[in-house]
């Protein structure tokens, strides 16, 4: 047996020596380059712009809190919407510096929970409770700010000092997370790029798994749940859309989907190495690319067909068909992103040992 092994090794090395490299070698793929692209062109820019944008939003909110006028309210709303759109470029990266760590959850759970609990927020306002050291996550974050500044009577209500205090505290709290995230990612490049395997815990595996999770969360909770398409629901629940108070839900879904698309392509300021390019080099990858991109096109068309002027929550009540179609088409995409892709790329999806033995 040893001889046989040696023999095969000899054959192997003869092959390796005698033939031109491209004939004996796989096309190959340098995951380090891919990770570098993800880091330089997608992840770090996302958190950098998120930080800048959050700081401007904070300034606008401080102005509003000190002088609650119509103009200042509109400015704060605008700043919030801009920031939230930037947030949707960063919300898929719930690992590494923005992953779970002890009692701290991933960043999307810390500052991106919706729907928020109006009653919990109102209770905190009445008691002027401005700390966030409990386990609630639905009384804070971006969507709590939205609730406070997009309320139809926001200006009136903000005349109350407690409410302004809470608005400032929530903003401060989420800015803290954003600053920490930016700082963490800023120092994480070497770690991120060097964990270039495909095992559980490697950067490729973590990025991929969070990408799929983010996609599924979008489909299930931004569409399925408010549409009443989840098992056990007895009716649609339009108030559970993301961005209920601002009425920008559709725009947010579109932005979220664009992020998913960008991660798939490895597309930041320029289109670099991403999962797509990785797929091109593996067994069965080209087929999968074709199916994936055909379905991406279908989803985009379905999105386009949905009227933009009517808020999503209203459409859910009056004419949900376009949204239901979108959910259906997104569902069809799931398998390409989820099992097909992890399978051909050989990426670990769990921490438990082995699916074979």
């Amino acid at each position, binding site marked *: 047996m040893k001889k046989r092994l040696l023999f095969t090794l000899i054959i192997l090395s003869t092959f390796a020596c005698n033939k031109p490299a491209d004939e*004996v070698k796989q096309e190959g793929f340098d995951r380090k380059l891919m990770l570098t692209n993800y880091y330089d062109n997608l992840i770090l820019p996302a958190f950098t712009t998120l930080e800048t944008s959050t700081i401007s939003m904070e300034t606008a909110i401080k102005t509003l809190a000190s002088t609650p006028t119509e103009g200042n309210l509109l400015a704060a709303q605008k700043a919030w919407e801009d920031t939230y759109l930037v947030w949707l470029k960063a919300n898929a990266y719930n690992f590494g510096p923005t992953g779970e760590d002890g009692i701290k959850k991933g960043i999307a759970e810390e500052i991106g929970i919706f729907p928020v609990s109006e009653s919990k927020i109102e209770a905190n306002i009445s008691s002027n409770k401005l700390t966030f050291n409990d386990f609630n996550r639905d009384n804070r974050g971006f969507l709590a700010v939205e609730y406070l500044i997009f309320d139809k009577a926001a200006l009136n209500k903000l005349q109350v000092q407690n409410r302004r205090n809470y608005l400032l505290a929530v903003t401060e709290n989420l800015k803290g997370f954003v600053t920490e995230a930016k700082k963490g990612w800023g120092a994480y490049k070497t770690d991120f790029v060097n964990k270039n395997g495909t095992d559980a815990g490697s950067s490729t595996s973590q990025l991929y798994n969070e990408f799929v999770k983010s996609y599924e969360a979008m489909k299930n909770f931004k569409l399925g749940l408010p549409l009443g398409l989840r098992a*056990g629901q007895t009716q649609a629940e339009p108030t559970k859309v993301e961005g209920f108070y601002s009425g920008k839900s559709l725009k947010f879904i579109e932005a979220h989907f664009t992020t998913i698309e960008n991660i798939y392509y490895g597309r930041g300021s320029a289109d670099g190495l991403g999962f797509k390019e990785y797929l091109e080099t593996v067994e*069965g990858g080209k087929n999968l690319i074709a199916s994936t991109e055909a379905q991406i096109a279908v989803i985009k068309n379905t999105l386009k067909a949905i009227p933009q002027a009517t808020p999503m929550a209203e459409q859910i009540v009056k004419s949900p068909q376009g949204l239901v179609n979108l959910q259906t088409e997104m569902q069809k995409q799931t398998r390409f992103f989820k*099992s097909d892709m992890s399978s051909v790329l*050989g990426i670990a999806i*769990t921490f438990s040992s082995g699916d*074979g033995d």
Partner: protein
Amino acid sequence: MMLFSTLRFWALGWIEDHFINTKCTFKYYGFEWVQILPPHFMYAIHTVMILASVGVLFGFFYRISAILLFLTFTYCQLIDLTYYLNHYYFVAIACLFMIFVPANRAFSLDIRWLKIKPVSHVSVWVINIFKLQIAIVYIFAGLAKINYEWLINALPLKIWLPAADALPFIGWLMKYKITPYVFSWAGMFYDTFIIFFLLNSKTRPFAYFTVIVFHAMTGLLFQIGVFPLVMIGATLLFFSDNFHEKLLNVLGWQEMSVHTNSPLNNNLLKYSLIAFFTFQLLFPWRYLLYTGNMFWTEQGYRFGWRVMLMEKAGTATFYVKDSKTGREGEVSNAEFLNNHQEKQMAMQPDMILQYAHFLKNHFAAKGVFKPSVRAEIFVTLNGKPSKLLIDPNLDLTQIKDSWTDKKWIINR
């Protein structure tokens, strides 16, 4: 016979709590009655398992320890089908054997403290049942590799190996197109023939060297836990008594023991063993009784020593319908299953069926009237485009699992 010390060592690493915070567990057919216990019981069972394995290792209250070890280990395997692994099955069988062998009769605390009569001889059948079992494992694993995908297409290794190109020492090998083919054929030859090289005293040292190399490689390449150690340890059994005595001498244990060829006199044990091995030899072939591609339907796949044979993954979406209102909703699997469970369930028909029945009961209790459950399941096998595994309009609650051919699996 002290060579079992290596075997005993494995038992020490098996403490894991897959069994806490579980909402849904998948059962082995015929073992649906095995239930998960509350967390503190699970910890207690694992504690017993550890103590029992220590008992076996040091030969202290040996037989009781061996029985407890077998029972606790097997219980933990039976709780959830998700975690089925061939090497756990192998360990369970080895634990079962250990109950019946007199491994406490030399170098044991039973002798030192409990004054059990030591023996310096061990019957050859004791060693042989382990050897036979190991032979079964390897040869079946080798035969299973003799198929078109494995040998001609080098699948799934063609998928798995390039993903391992970042590994130290062997990563560079993965860049070559021929590597998966070499590994596929080498793996097949290794599994099928290694046992014969181990049996022959001349080739044994080489063979054992190969065992170490092979299992070290697979250990590096794949997430397969302790399997390489188990096999590297277990195959030590093939070495002669002389070798082990020398080893023991080196370790400073002076007492000698010699194999003798005393026959197995206990008829009950003898016929049980014959029955057991007949079962072992036949059971892996049961897939021949089913129609369709075994890799796709997984009928007769388990308990057949089919290891690392396919790359398979699925996405399973379940829909629960209220039969009064007609309202249908999509299930979020993550609400009920952990990642590992979801992954395993999404490609294995019997688990899909169990999950559908679990969902029916869950949502019936939540007030959905006579729920029907259907599932859209797309499975990819060895990197091929995914296809539907079952009819997406089929009400799974109307189907019961059995040994009969699962006709409802499509695209077979």
